[in-house]
């Protein structure tokens, strides 16, 4: 081996640049490509139209700035925020607690039962597909209007979201330590707790804090069940054309989102 390649030009097999692609796959790619391109083509705005519109944005900005600073208003916004945070935290935590087992049961290769993973994936999708309004109806019927129903709605939203991303994070966790624990006969649950969760942790944290942020922002969900929240406040400022108030609320929300972004970052960094 040593000297054989040093000075001779070996006749090496020329490999294909792309792997084997079946005729069906090829057609499929073409079709998908065509759909995407035609979709984009249908909706590209004419640049001239855009150019005309841009200056008009100024007037919108004018009506938004400076944001409202009336202390009484800001005080109300603050309490709304606190209230929203409470509901959001409770709903997200409960949702995450339920998402963990459901996500696990839906994760291919990690779940204890192989046959039912798609079933659980479908269940999670179902949670997402049923619109918030229906969930709102259900919770208002069972627990009545208010913060409790709001928490439940957020919980359901969280399950639909976290269930999917938790499942994905578990599927993508490093396979080798799992194999090692499997080799010594650890149960699927022990593998989950011993190997999968530690590896998926940064992703779980990211998803959870995103869900929390989403819950804080979510205007529709809480408004539906009469739980108000900051989102509702924002929506009604818009509906009443009080843009300066809306701007103030948006800034407050943005601040909270930034703080949560920072927390996510810190938490993830501390365990990576």
């Amino acid at each position, binding site marked *: 081996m040593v000297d054989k390649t040093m000075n001779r030009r070996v006749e090496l097999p020329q490999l294909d640049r792309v792997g084997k692609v079946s005729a069906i796959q090829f057609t499929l790619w073409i079709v998908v490509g065509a759909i995407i391109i035609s979709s984009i083509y249908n909706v590209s705005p004419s640049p001239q139209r855009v150019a005309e519109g841009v200056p008009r944005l100024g*007037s919108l900005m004018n009506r938004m700035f400076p944001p409202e600073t009336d202390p009484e208003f800001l005080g109300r916004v603050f309490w709304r925020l606190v209230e929203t945070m409470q509901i959001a935290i409770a709903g997200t935590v409960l949702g995450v607690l339920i998402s963990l087992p459901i996500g696990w049961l839906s994760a291919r290769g990690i779940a204890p039962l192989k046959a039912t993973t798609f079933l659980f994936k479908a269940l999670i999708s179902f949670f997402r597909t049923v619109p918030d309004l229906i969930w*709102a109806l259900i919770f*208002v019927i069972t627990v*009545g*209007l208010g913060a409790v129903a709001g928490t439940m709605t957020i919980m359901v939203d969280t399950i639909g979201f976290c269930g999917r991303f938790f499942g994905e994070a578990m599927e993508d966790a490093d396979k080798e330590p799992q194999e090692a624990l499997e080799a010594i006969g650890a149960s699927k649950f022990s593998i989950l707790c011993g190997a999968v969760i530690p590896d998926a942790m940064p992703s779980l944290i990211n998803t959870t804090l995103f869900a929390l942020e989403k819950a804080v922002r979510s205007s529709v969900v809480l408004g539906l069940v009469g739980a108000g929240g900051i989102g509702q406040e924002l929506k009604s400022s*818009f*509906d009443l*054309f*009080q843009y300066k108030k809306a701007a103030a609320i948006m800034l407050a929300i943005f601040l909270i989102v930034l703080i949560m972004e920072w927390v996510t970052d810190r938490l993830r960094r501390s365990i990576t």
Partner: protein
Amino acid sequence: TDVEGLEQLEQEFGAVEAALEKSTGLEMDLIPVSSRTAAVEAMNAGQVNFVLTGPAEYVVMKELTDAQIVVAWQRPDYFGQIVVLADGDISTAQDLKGKIVSFGSVGSTSQQLGPAQALADLGLKYGTDYDAQIIKRNVAIEALIRGDISAIGMNFGHLQKAREAYPEVAFKVVARGPDLPNDILVASADVDADVLAKVKKAFVEDGAAIMEAVLKGEDNDKYAGGFFLGSVDDADYDYVRSMYSTIGVDGFSGFVGD
């Protein structure tokens, strides 16, 4: 107006579009918008020329842009009302003192402004004499049945639909406002006077034909018996302006009544 109604209208609007194009000779595009804010801004930015809208939005539009009224579209039985359960313990509006009343959508003429004004006319002050909440109609009805809230502000059409959907529940109206000012077709300031006139003429003269087209859609019965009115006065909407102050929106007090 209730924007949702417009949306529904659009589903079966092909016929209307055709009728309008035929009688004006102009090409039209109909776009349903679910947000009154977006509709107003679109008009404001000159991206649309005509907006079919309700009284409350008109008031704002008039304030923000120099919108011109083309025609008014009278909807029969268009008024706000306060609905309660027939077998509940609320029998008059006065019983609502200290109770929770829900309204369907902030800034909606027939779902918030109108009903709130009806209560105000009966001496109940918005937000102080009763607790006003904004809750979507579907949810509010369930909450009403459950007893979480005592009354819902909605318009007549909504109540009819609700009665169909909840045949086993008996509803009762405890307050009712006067017929609301008409829905209007508004044109933006930069529409040619020429085009404006054409459209106006089409509505006034071929009103019957257009209305017939509207009624082709099965869900548009609510417009049955409606008329297009060619002469509308901005002052007709002062009643709406006063509603804004009723619900405590200070932002509009500046032009209420001027």
